[in-house]
């Protein structure tokens, strides 16, 4: 038991068990001098010390930018007037001229537009389809406004 408590007093354990690669210490001086007088200059050392802070700041800016971008894309649809319902609302309120309507004719579903005027006598489904097929946008508008 006494011997066990003195296990660390074995002198063999205090001996150095390590070796170094051959020629290590003779090369060490040249390597250290190369680092001191070579590329490892003061600006490089300042960069090495501040690298982690700069990386953290860049990560924060990137995350903020991504968040702002996602937020902007999410709100883009709400503000757009280039949708069907948006254009129709503006036409009803008189904000868009016929020339504007011409330009965006392809974007408007004419059947839906015609159905909003409730022309039951004339504008049933078949009639509406016939009109759509035969008339240009200006003719349609002229017809509708004259009714």
């Amino acid at each position, binding site marked *: *038991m006494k011997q*066990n*408590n003195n*296990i*660390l007093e*074995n002198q*063999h*354990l*205090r*001996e*150095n*068990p*390590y*070796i*170094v*690669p051959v020629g*290590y*210490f003779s090369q*060490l*001086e040249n*390597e*250290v*001098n190369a*680092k*001191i007088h070579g590329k*490892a200059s003061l600006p490089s050392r300042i960069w090495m010390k501040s690298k982690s802070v700069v990386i953290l700041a860049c990560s924060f800016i990137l995350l903020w930018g991504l968040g702002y971008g996602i937020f902007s894309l999410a709100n883009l649809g709400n503000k757009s007037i280039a949708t069907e319902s948006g254009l129709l609302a503006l036409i009803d309120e008189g904000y868009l001229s016929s020339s504007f309507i011409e330009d965006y004719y392809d974007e408007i579903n004419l059947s839906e537009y015609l159905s909003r005027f409730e022309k039951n006598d004339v504008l049933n489904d078949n009639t509406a389809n016939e009109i759509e097929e035969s008339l240009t946008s200006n003719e349609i508008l002229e017809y509708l406004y004259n009714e």
Partner: protein
Amino acid sequence: MDDKEILDIYKEGKKDYAFNLITRKYSERLYWHLRKLLNSHEDTNDILQDTLIKVWHNLPNYREDAKLYTWMYRIATNEALTFLKRQQLKNRLLFKKIDNENTDDIIADPNFSGDKAQADLQVAINALPPKQKAVFCLRYFDEMKYDNMVEIMGGTTGSLKASYYHAYNKVKDHLLKVTNYE
């Protein structure tokens, strides 16, 4: 050549020559001090070079209130402790085991020429917290007096004695467990 002569050469303006004299005189002692603290030759080489570069940059500020070797020893020990703490934190964050955690890893190291008992001892030392490890190595291997240890590591003689006591018992318990003594 003694330290005073080397420092006189440095003050005359022959800085490179003086620094090379310091490197040739002390690098081997510093290496073996660091080697016991760090787990590999590669880490020891990196920390030793960082230490010597710091010595070069701080030589103009060296006040000669401590011996040159004690001053260099302090820089080397602080560099090693900083490295060990960083490595410990990194291992914890990555849920990674420390290097050379078992005897087989140490025996497999091409720069290790000892036997199993010495490898077991190194495993026990590697498991100590960084500061206890430094205190244990300075006292157990270098047989450094506590007064000199205070100059290198700071703190008080009492706190260093307590650190050594705890480290010694941890290492002893590990060796007893590994060698299956009753």
